[in-house]
């Protein structure tokens, strides 16, 4: 592609930046790829924005803005240009404030660095292409799997947003666990009361189709075109086409049959907390074994929870439920004795109130554990160790209630095989990103809400369902998806069908399509594949581009040529006297951290050059080696922390592989492997970045000139020939 000249617009940030603007202006105006240079005091203000629009028009959209962090300025510029109907997709940003002026004492060096980075960005801009609005229509239909409170709430919300909804429930009735709760904290209402309005609304809603007694077998397709294969109540396999899926299969209560100390499953008077809830809801309060009245109740907390053998962590709900139920018991049987054997009472939020109330009403809290349960002459006894009194108590009970652990519903692993979401070690569905993308799963178009992601109170499940609905609405946009496609674009002709992209894409976007027709004519009887990528489904991390052996898949805003020419241009003046550390940083965690380094004016050496990439996974081994070829002394990648991939997968792991292999190869070919390094950071850890960058600059100095500087690179040919 021909190189386009771009206008350069350099901002002085209200004449506040310590940079030599005259020098910058003359340097940049000498650059081949700059069509014009303008220095402006307030690019982010009205007049600056107008200047941008003017420059865009004059340069066919090719513009480099050297100003503050694009994280701050870009949204503003985009908004302005959008309202003025001007395309902003080709603008390239270079941060001369947080990444240069604010972090280097020496004004000459800071100016030099800024000039180099502007040159690099001009090169990137030269090959930028316009990205246009793309559109696709999909059925405005969502399927909710699970008819508990989260599922019901999702269905109602989705239908409010204008989607047709199929609500699939495995049992005969909607409502899930909530149906059997005598009282729902902190409302004081019963589960039935909470459900009734919703159930009525759902029955009267023509947009919602309820299917009960169905079991989902597997799912195929992708967002906008999922097929759900399920068994209907007469065991017939059916399919359902849908655009997105809400996973709301809820939780199941742990049945402590294997814990001998409780005699659960052997003694009918030993029940779980949820079984007590059911008993209370049904209204029949009597000893299950013989129907005798209930007077003595012992509840045991943390049965299975916080236990290495069963559920390692706290189940969060059980304390509140136990207190709720004990208050309910006391109300129905005023002369009953309720004892709660606990390890720690954990009642979050306003539930603390009912804890206080229960204390006042006489619920007896015993800190300790139950060591055994036995039956004697038709009566059940428990032995409790009270750790505060250091005493063993033997208590006759009419009812022993076990607050057992809350586990994810069955079938989650099986479904994950085709639904593609990740599952945590404890069996819950893994969220895409714990902090920022809670309800999304790794698979685009699949959200998980309610108890399937973690134990949740009823109100949390409802909030979750509402959030999930918004997530889906954000994706489906009511059935007409309109977006400026920003992501990987596949050139099918170049695709060799190696499937590396499909294997490694964090979101499973590339699909491998078998080329049956070409196979028919193939002389070698090859099994031929081509990838297919829906750019509108892509999250634009660039992992596929990094791995593609043929350059068939490339990000439409950062092609290989763009990055390679930027590397070359940035490093134009690099050499033995001017040892440069090149840093690729991701625009997720690293950019925030590096920006914070800037705002906090944390000093680091100025012989560093920074190149942004959407995700560290975009950096391929070729990019690293190219940097050395063009004279970099050391190369580093700044990336997100392990297991904290914002795309929900392995972006930074792919980067790590590139760095590791590059190190091994450098060592093998007569270089020093530690000229390349990988550094990870959370989004606000400025020290980690400065430490890393200092380390790499020191290495550059210590290791001295590279073979490229010495002219020994490529010498092996002469030796062998």
């Amino acid at each position, binding site marked *: 592609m021909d190189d386009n000249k771009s206008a350069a617009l350099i901002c002085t940030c209200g004449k506040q930046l310590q940079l030599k603007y005259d020098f910058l202006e003359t340097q940049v105006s000498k650059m081949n790829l700059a069509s014009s240079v303008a220095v402006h005091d307030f690019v982010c203000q009205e007049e600056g924005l107008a200047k941008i629009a003017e420059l865009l028009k004059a340069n066919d959209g090719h513009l480099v803005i050297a100003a503050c962090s694009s994280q701050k300025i870009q949204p503003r510029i985009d908004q302005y240009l959008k309202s003025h109907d001007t395309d902003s997709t080709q603008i390239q940003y270079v941060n001369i404030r947080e990444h240069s002026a604010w972090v280097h004492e020496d004004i000459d060096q800071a100016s030099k660095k800024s000039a180099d980075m502007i040159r690099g960005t001009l090169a990137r801009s030269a090959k930028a292409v316009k990205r246009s609005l793309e559109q696709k229509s999909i059925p405005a239909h969502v399927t909710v799997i699970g008819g508990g409170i989260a599922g019901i709430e999702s269905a109602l919300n989705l239908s409010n947003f204008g989607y047709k909804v199929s609500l699939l429930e495995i049992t005969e009735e909607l409502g899930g666990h909530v149906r059997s709760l005598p009282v729902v904290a902190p409302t004081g209402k019963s589960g039935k009361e909470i459900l009734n309005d919703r159930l009525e609304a759902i029955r009267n809603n023509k947009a919602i189709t309820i299917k009960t007694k169905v079991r989902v077998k597997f799912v195929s397709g992708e967002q906008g075109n999922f097929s759900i294969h399920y068994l209907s109540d007469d065991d017939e396999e059916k399919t359902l086409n849908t655009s997105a899926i809400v996973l709301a299969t809820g939780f199941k209560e742990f049945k402590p049959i294997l814990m001998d100390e409780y005699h659960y499953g052997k003694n009918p008077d030993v029940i779980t907390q949820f079984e007590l809830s059911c008993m209370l809801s049904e209204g029949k309060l009597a000893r299950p074994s013989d129907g005798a009245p209930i007077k003595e109740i012992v509840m045991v907390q943390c049965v299975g929870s916080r236990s290495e053998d069963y559920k390692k962590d706290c189940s969060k709900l059980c304390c509140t439920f136990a207190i709720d139920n004990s208050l309910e018991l006391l109300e129905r049987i005023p002369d009953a004795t309720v004892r709660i054997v606990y390890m720690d009472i954990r009642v979050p939020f306003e539930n603390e109130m009912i804890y206080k109330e229960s204390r006042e009403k006489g619920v007896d809290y015993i800190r300790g554990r139950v060591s055994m349960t036995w039956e004697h002459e038709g009566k059940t006894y428990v032995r409790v160790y009270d750790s505060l009194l250091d005493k063993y108590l033997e208590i006759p009970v009419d009812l022993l209630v076990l607050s057992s652990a809350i586990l994810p519903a069955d079938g989650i692993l099986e479904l994950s095989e085709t639904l593609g979401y990740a599952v945590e070690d404890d069996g819950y569905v893994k969220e895409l990103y714990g902090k920022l993308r809670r309800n999304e799963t790794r698979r685009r178009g699949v959200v998980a809400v309610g108890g399937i992601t973690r134990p949740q109170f009823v109100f949390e499940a409802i909030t979750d369902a509402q959030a999930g609905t918004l997530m889906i609405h954000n994706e489906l946009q009511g059935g007409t998806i309109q977006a400026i496609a920003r992501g990987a674009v596949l050139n099918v002709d170049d695709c*060799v069908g190696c499937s590396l992209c499909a294997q490694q894409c964090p979101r499973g976007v590339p699909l491998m399509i078998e080329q049956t027709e070409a196979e028919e004519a193939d002389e070698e009887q090859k099994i031929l594949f081509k990838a297919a990528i829906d750019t509108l489904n892509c999250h634009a991390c660039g992992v596929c581009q990094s791995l593609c*052996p043929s350059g068939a898949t490339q990000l439409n805003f950062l092609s290989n040529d763009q990055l390679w020419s930027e590397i070359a241009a940035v490093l134009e003046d690099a050499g033995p006297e001017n040892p440069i550390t090149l840093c690729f940083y991701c625009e997720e965690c690293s950019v925030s951290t590096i920006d914070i380094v800037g705002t906090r004016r944390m000093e680091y050496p100025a012989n560093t050059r920074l190149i942004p990439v959407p995700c560290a996974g975009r950096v*391929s081994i070729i990019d690293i080696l190219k940097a050395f070829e063009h004279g970099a002394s050391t190369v580093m990648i700044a990336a997100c922390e392990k297991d904290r991939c914002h795309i929900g997968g392995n972006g930074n792991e792919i980067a790590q592989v590139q760095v590791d292999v590059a190190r091994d190869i450098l060592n093998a*070919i007569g270089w020093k492997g530690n000229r390349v390094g990988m550094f990870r950071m959370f989004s606000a850890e400025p020290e980690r970045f400065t430490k890393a960058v200092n380390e790499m600059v020191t290495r550059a100095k210590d290791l001295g000139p590279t073979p490229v500087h010495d002219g020994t690179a490529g010498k092996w040919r002469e030796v062998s020939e």
Partner: protein
Amino acid sequence: MSQATPEKVIAPKRQRMLDMILTLSGLKEESTIPISRVKDELENLKKELAPLTDAILAFPDSYFEKFLEAVKKSNITAEINDRGILKESISSLEQALSIVESVSLKALNKILTDTLSRMTEIEEHKDVSVDIDMTSTMSTISDLISEIESITDEFEKAAETEAESARSELVTLAESLEETKGKVEKDPDSALDDLQKLGSQTRYGPGLRSIAQVKRGKREGRIDDARFNKLVKENLLTEINRGVILFILSKMGSKTVVQIGELMQTPSQIIQDALVTMIQRGEVEMVGLDGDAPVFSRVLTETQNSTLLMKRIVQQVRGMVKSVEGETADTMNEALGRLQAILERLKILGAYNEALLSDSINKLRETVDSVTEALLTAQTSEDADNLKLLISAGLEAFARFRLKITLEKGPTLVSGTNVYGEKLDPEVYKTMMDTYLDNELERGTILILIRELGALTVHDLAERTNIPSDRILRHLLRMKRDELLTIAGESHGYLLYDVPRTLSESEITMQTTSGLALQLSEAKGELQRILSDLKASDIGKLANALEVFSKARDKLTSVRVQGAVIDESTLSDVEDKIRSAVLLTYRTRAKIPSTRPKVTIEDLLDIDVPSVLDEYRSQMGYAPLLGFGTIEWEQSRCLGCKSCEIACPEHAIELKRRIEIPKLFEISDKALSQLPSNRLLFYKTVQNLATQKPSNEIILEKESPGFGTVEVDLWLCVACRICVRRCPGPEGGALELELKWSLPEVVKHITSTS
């Protein structure tokens, strides 16, 4: 490439394969003895057998004499009700009589044939007259038929117009084909290219594949020039003809051989030859007759429902015709004729707009149903029974069909995949099921007829069902293979087929005895022939013949006529003699060397494994492996993509965490230039940066997509070639499979582990 490590436990699959090698290559060897000893041994045997043979040879005659008496006395033939058994016994006896003379067997045969003819006479029987007025119904039927006929006319007109438009396309095809034919002699290579182009125009898969195979064979030097020319001239040209034929059949409707020949301007003989294979491949089927010439059609992915319905109606009416008489029969026969004609025309049409037809055809079905019902309730004649049979056959077939669909693997093959990742096309599945239903209907009819009427021949069945006899034969053979039917003898040169039956004691007696009579006659002939001039190579046959005597004798001791064993004294008398004769023969055989050559491990070097496999397959009917192979991996073409590992059904191939980096510096410029762009750039950049050529390979700490070394575990590889086919590397991929396996390696392995 990995070397097999001797401490590995041998997999059962591989063990079977090694056993196979041992057996076939004769590694299990007996020691040799000199020729003179062989002669002595044979002489000894002859001498020892002499006193025994007379008694042995005489025992069948004596037994059957006594048996005949017993049969006459007890009249057990009267207890035989199954005609199949009778026919079978008669056929065995006739065969036996053709080998040896025997008065008693002849007499026995006479008794049986008499019984049979008496049985058949009984069934020549009464006529039952029926008289139902059906004039009005018949006229309705006739009206409906006229309606359908006129619609079919419309269909044919529409099809004709479509064919017209395909004609010009065909002309160009035929012209370029003609041109290519001219080239074949002079320049087969470019002719082949032309053929390939033609092939892709007609989109004939098998043709394209064989062209590709020949090309590949030529390039790899497996096919010499002479053979190549011959293949291009004969086989591939025929393949292209097939493509054109299929083009004609699918675009221009069903045609006879002569019609196709005219359209292609090719002699009909060539068309005929090409068609035979296409029928075998299931691409073309015969759908009717035009005069005497068969009309062919492309096998449609789906038969129109109306055609199926029409077929049912025709079958039903055919059944009805036999149950009516007089004028009704005439009108009904006429209707049947017209319906059959329509059915033929619909079949030839193949695809048509069903909606136009559905009304009248549904009405017709209802009317015919009501007539059938009337006939069924009104009659009790045998013909009505036949009609009932036909209808219940249909029902049975439908029921079985549904059951099969729900039970069998079909649906899972469509939705899932088998172990080699193959998936069944739902369309193909549908076709399979349609033909399956068709076949099941006919098979059901045949089975029920045989079950009710006793063993029948193809001829009988064709007469009763009006299904063409070749189809019947196919069904019979299929059902025989499925063990639904057995061969129950012969009648007028036709084989009799029967269902396996539970037999009465008399029937078993007659069946066993006559069967043994045949075996004994054969064995007797064989024994006499061998003993007249005993040779070393006949020793096995001698043993076999004696074994037949021994087994037949044992069986005869269990045959009882009215509770008594026949000729017990002779049987027990001859027992010892037969046994010692058998033992003597075996002992001698053990002293004579086998004819197998002695094989050493070194000889195994020259064993051509594929041919060994073929031999094994032809002997055993299966092969334990797809093949043996040695897989070579070429680093310079590998993209490290792991596709081979993912595709391998046996987990035999793996991308190891190792980069053989020294080899990266030895890749030729030409090989480099074939690589995908980024891969090329990667290697080039590494080479540009290097100050020295690396000497050690790189061991990677963890799995690294895009990097690694491919290793094949030959102990697991079944040489299915899937990895080779899947490899996306340049120039046909990084993997190459040679269907040759180092046998000494294998043998070393066996001897070290077993």
